């Protein structure tokens, strides 16, 4: 009977395509919306991925990695004095304008690394050498910097070329690979002691202290110890990531807007699938009544209906997820659209699609339960 149920469904091409379209569209909206949200959120904590450290120490009021409230230089020494610290390095992170050779300005995330250790340096160099950062007036830019600084030139910006920050020369000695920032501006790495010349008029420049725990000390233990002993805020990498994400969730309209997309997907899915499935049952009610008269139990017919709705749900979900993956691959290749498809997203979408399918089936089941087999004789 289940095979017949599927043949009944697949044979009604118009209804079948309508149902598949509804579920596909719902999957597309929900999954794409959630992947977009995760993508945006992953951009918010990109400094944590581009500047590598186990523990980040900041002003007690700092809640997220893009918001730095400068520390005193002596705070670096206080952190170093905490038991369990292997090393601690100064870090500047701020937003500045770069003036290109053609006179245009670009907004950049300027990062000042400790010149001695280069702690927090980018993990992957595409071109040039990290050590060259110790040469005078030098910077390392990322692949987005190359793209944005090249926009009005025919030839890509490369190692050996210069631009200006605060009228000071910034000579490119390397190109690294980073994760895109929330603001979209490229990361420009230089040394901490050179920051003073690039950033005018700021009394304090120490945005964060990057800390490495000594052997046998976990980042979490060390973070709590630093907080106890210095009164500063210390985050493990994971803590800082979630703190940043929650800050954006609380303080921006992103979750509401993306949540609306996901909800629209769910409602559209329920509406289209429920209505189409119900009309499918209505149109087949005389045949279903005939099956009931011939001895098919209500339970059998309900199971047939559930199988039909689950089949539509799974096929629609598969197609929808396939489209999302294709679109995601495309946008990731372009690199300009936030997209992060965590494994939890398809799982949650599948649960939502199954919910849609069950709701659609329930409407049909309600009809079948009330269906009198005697109607077939009228």
């Amino acid at each position, binding site marked *: *009977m289940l*095979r*017949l149920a599927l*043949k*009944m*469904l*697949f*044979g*009604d091409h118009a209804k079948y395509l309508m149902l598949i379209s509804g579920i596909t569209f719902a999957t597309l909206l929900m999954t794409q919306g959630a992947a977009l949200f995760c993508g945006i959120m992953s951009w918010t904590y990109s400094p944590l991925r581009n500047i590598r450290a186990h523990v980040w120490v900041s002003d007690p009021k700092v809640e997220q990695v893009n918001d730095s409230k400068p520390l005193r230089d002596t705070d670096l020494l206080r952190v170093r004095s905490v038991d369990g610290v292997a090393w601690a390095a100064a870090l500047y992170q701020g937003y500045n304008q770069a003036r290109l050779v053609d006179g245009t300005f670009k907004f950049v995330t300027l990062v000042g690394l400790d010149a001695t250790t280069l702690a927090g340096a980018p993990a992957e160099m595409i071109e040039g050498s990290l050590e060259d950062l110790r040469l005078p007036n030098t910077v390392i830019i990322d692949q987005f910097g190359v793209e944005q600084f090249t926009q009005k030139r025919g030839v890509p910006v490369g190692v050996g070329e210069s631009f200006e920050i605060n009228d000071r020369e910034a000579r490119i000695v390397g190109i690294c690979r980073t994760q895109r920032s929330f603001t979209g501006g490229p990361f420009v790495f230089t040394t901490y002691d050179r920051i003073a010349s690039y950033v005018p008029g700021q009394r304090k420049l120490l945005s964060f202290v990057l800390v490495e725990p000594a052997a046998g000390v976990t980042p979490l233990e060390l973070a709590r110890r630093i907080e106890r002993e210095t009164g500063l805020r210390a985050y493990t990498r994971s803590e800082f990531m979630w703190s940043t994400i929650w800050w954006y969730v609380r303080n921006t309209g992103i979750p509401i807007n993306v949540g609306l997309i996901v909800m629209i997907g769910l409602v559209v899915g329920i509406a289209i699938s429920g209505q189409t499935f119900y009309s499918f049952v209505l149109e*087949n009610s*005389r*045949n279903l009544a*005939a*099956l*009931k*008269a*011939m*001895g*098919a*139990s*209500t339970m*059998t017919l309900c199971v047939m209906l559930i199988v039909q709705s689950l089949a539509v749900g799974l096929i629609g979900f598969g197609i929808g997820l396939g489209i999302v993956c294709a679109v995601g691959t495309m946008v990731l290749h372009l690199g300009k659209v936030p997209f992060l498809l965590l494994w939890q997203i398809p799982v949650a979408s599948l649960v939502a699609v199954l919910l849609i399918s069950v709701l659609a089936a329930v409407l049909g089941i309600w009809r079948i339960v009330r269906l*009198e*087999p*005697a109607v*077939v*004789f*009228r």
Partner: protein
Amino acid sequence: MQLNEWSAAASAIRVLGIEKAFGEGTSRTPVLRGAALEARRGEMLMLVGPSGCGKTTLLSIIAGTMHADAGQVEVLGQRIDRMRAGQVTRFRAHHLGFIFQQFNLIPTLTIAENVSVPLLIQGLRPGAAERRAREILDRVGLSDKTESRPSKLSGGQQQRVAIARALVHDPPLVICDEPTSSLDSENGRQVMDILRDIACDPHRCVIIVTHDNRTYRYADRMAEMEDGTIRHVLGSPAEIAAAHAAQGIPARTAAS
């Protein structure tokens, strides 16, 4: 009179004192008023009468698809009015075959699949069910249409498929609701010929609700209904022939 007073030996259907009304309160309309009927195995019984006399309602009650308000219903020796809903459903699946006025073939299934439905309901495997369906389709002359869809068949062919579906599980009782009313006279005759040839055997009862007087000559007995009761049951060939003659209907041929 109680049902147990009747002879049960060859009886397929025995109903007594059936009452049924539709609606509530002042709009309550009685449809059956103490209807009583008996049908035997091996006979083709026609239930005839004017529209609205309660034929289809009585047929639904006999088929177990509708409950009577009062009365006793015994089908194939089982009191189906005392059965629970699930029991009646299983009883129908195993013992009853149905032929409907509008054929009720599932349009998205092939003819063989449509015919195999009663066997699938009984739980037979699809392969075995379809083999059996092809055999019975061969008997109704549709062996070349097994993979066709119902929409590709004429009305007469669709009703032959419905006959095959009604008989595929070899039920002892076949219930037919106006089997020829959607067909022209030639197709109606063919359908009745097939019903007479294939459906009728000594162990099976065929009960037909009809007001198509062209089909009367195929009946072994005719029960005439009026105002919710059975007025007459014409039993002997002479009685039926006389009734046919009175209506200008030719007598059944020897072949049929």
